[in-house]
């Protein structure tokens, strides 16, 4: 590899895409047909998310070195990010045909298949990749990722564990494993994993977003429990007079809530609190939901003291309001994501 191309690669690896691009373009001015430089430039533009421009560079590289596997691999990835899945898969296939033993080619092909929705094929290629490079964390990470998309949680979990064994600081694997925990309805475990992932690489922006999602999940659980408890409280007696049965029911609900909360938080790492606070700060409706849920618990505390069962109506109203709010937020956000 020429020195210039090496410099471009290093700059890309450091995430300095604009410097890398400048370096590549300067070198290309002297040697416009240098395939290695063109590939390096395409990789930089892929990293920078400038897919159309990257594709132009990759196309130029194809003309210069049609037998070079990297060219087709990059073209495939770029096309895939541009949503041109059919061509992307073709390019990826060309890459693996040219270099059947090359792990990077297999990685590219698997990614392209995965993004095209051909998960079973992607899985096959991922297994092949693991066979080609069994000691690379990246291979197992890819397999885990595809397996988790495919809903094969057992393979996914085992592969994430393997990634973390090979590279204990692999923050993305830690994060994605936590996502898997959240999907398996283990929010507390997910939260602990996310705090870990964030500590490994605090500059990864996705982690805080996932924490927010897990907090929504937790709040939903808490509200479900409160709804059940409120039904019990309403049907366990009647009347507007203070009563001991109301006091006892409310106290029991509070105790059960405390026990549930303790079960949830007892295994959380020490650094969880600032993370939760930061996540709540980024999401207003979530913050409101938690505050309102806290108010519901406070109402039960009042009932436990005064014995006034009618106050439970407040909890009902609050839970109903929160239900509508959650629904509204969900609709607005998924519309925004699509639009």
């Amino acid at each position, binding site marked *: 590899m020429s020195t210039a191309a090496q*410099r471009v690669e*290093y700059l890309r690896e450091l995430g300095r895409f*604009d410097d890398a691009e400048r370096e590549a373009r300067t070198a290309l001015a002297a040697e416009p*047909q240098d395939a290695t430089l063109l590939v390096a430039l395409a990789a930089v533009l892929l990293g*920078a998310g400038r897919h159309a421009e990257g594709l132009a560079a990759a196309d130029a590289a194809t003309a210069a070195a049609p037998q070079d596997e990297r060219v087709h691999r990059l073209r495939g990835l770029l096309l895939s990010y541009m949503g041109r899945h059919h061509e992307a898969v073709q390019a990826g296939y060309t890459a693996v045909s040219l270099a059947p033993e090359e792990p990077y080619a297999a990685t590219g092909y698997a990614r392209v298949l995965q993004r095209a929705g051909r998960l079973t094929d992607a899985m096959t290629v991922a297994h092949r990749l693991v066979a080609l490079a069994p000691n690379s964390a990246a291979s197992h990470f890819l397999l885990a990722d595809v397996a988790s998309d495919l809903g094969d949680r057992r393979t996914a979990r085992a592969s994430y564990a393997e990634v973390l064994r090979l590279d204990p600081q692999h923050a993305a694997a830690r994060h994605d494993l936590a996502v898997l925990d959240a999907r398996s309805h283990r929010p507390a475990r997910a939260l602990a994993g996310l705090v870990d992932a964030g500590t490994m690489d605090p*500059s990864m922006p996705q*982690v805080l977003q996932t924490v927010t*999602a897990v907090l929504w999940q937790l709040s939903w659980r808490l509200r479900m429990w409160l709804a059940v408890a409120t039904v019990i409280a309403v049907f366990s007696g009647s009347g507007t007079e203070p009563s001991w049965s109301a006091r006892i029911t409310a106290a029991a609900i509070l105790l059960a809530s405390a026990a549930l909360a303790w079960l949830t938080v007892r295994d959380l790492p020490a*650094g969880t609190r600032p993370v939760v606070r930061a996540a709540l700060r980024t999401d207003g409706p979530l913050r409101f939901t938690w505050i309102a849920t806290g108010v519901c618990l406070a109402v039960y505390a009042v009932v436990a003291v005064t014995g006034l069962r009618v106050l439970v109506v407040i909890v009902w109203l609050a839970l109903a309001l929160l239900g509508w709010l959650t629904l509204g937020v969900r609709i607005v956000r998924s519309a925004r994501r699509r639009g």
Partner: protein
Amino acid sequence: MLSARTNVSKVECVPLKLAESHRIGILDPMPDDALLTSLLSAVEAAPGDVPLRLHVAELLADRGRLPEALAHCTQAITHDAANPAALALLHRLTSAISTPEPPVFDWTSAEEQVADIEPPEFAHVEDPAPAPTIEDIERPTVTLADVGGMEQVKERLELAFLGPMRNPQLAKAFGKTLAGGLLLYGPPGCGKTFLARAVAGELGARFYNVGISDVLDMYVGASERNLSQIFDAARRNAPCVLFLDEIDALGQKRSHLAHSTSMRNVVNQLLSEMDSLGGAGDGVFVLGATNHPWDVDNALRRPGRFDRMLLVLPPDAAARASILRYHLRDRPVAQIDVDKIVRATEHFSGADLAHVCTTAAERGLAASMRAGQLRPLTTADLEAAVREIRPSTGPWFSTARTVTAFGNADGSYDDLAAYLRKNKKL
């Protein structure tokens, strides 16, 4: 809310480091492509080929590179004075250049072009920070007095660094060791490099700037110079401030460098060089700067190495005023209300302010070209430029928010956390 959870996208396959720095980097689009590049070299090979040259000029014009297009067009006309296509293009280009606001216009070269006409006024428009190379062990003339505002940073520098350097005996009496460096960190373009140079000036020491391009040379083995030679040279030139700019590149977390042995070797070398420095006795003071201290290998932050961090925030009002004055000093200006601009540019970095001034100068230049005579810059030009430019520090602060949430267990980002609490909207 379940949908939020199930839709959480898994971390993308793009290597993480890339995904992250992508958010921080300001990518300036270069309207360039492989076709054009190859055509340009074809033109060089065949300077007399008029149709080819015209084609290139057309392409350049399409990409908004009007001055270059114009140059090729005039070349073509010198070869074939009567060529109707060339004349038509010339007409098109000249009228495009004189229209009020051409879409993309290479103002830097335009300003270079008028440099002869309108003496030195526009000659120094470039950013004053030169590309550092190892050869320039310089004696900086700037001191902290040249740094506008930023009183807190100056005070911390004085207490933590300059004071002990000036009074080694006193520092020793209090058991303060002079070994170890100081790491400046903060959003891009907010004066870290500038401050380091001023510190050297303040100490009357030489300034040895090791930048990213030196580091790359080390990686690719393109230069004989390696870190130990750099440290040796610094010792020979003592008293000397050895400034390791962009230390995140030099001292990248080794876990991030799984594939790159040569990069990891450089980190290890840096660790041992830092340990070899014997405090003030050597007369070498190490300063580092980075936008991403969280990417710096933890081993580099241990005692005796970069054990102190200093947050350099976007310039405060006084600093902004002095930066604006600096960038306007050689430009034709007419009674500019600097305070008004200062108030409108909170959270702007030093580099953003330079950008504001350049943009305003472009407007002034355009107006002057239209009027056929020099029209000095006005407050309105600057205000219009401020409206066009968004502060570039936003992405940095959003990363910083995550970092303070996850990575501040040891309190090393307390300053940053406090600033973020005060500026909730950032």
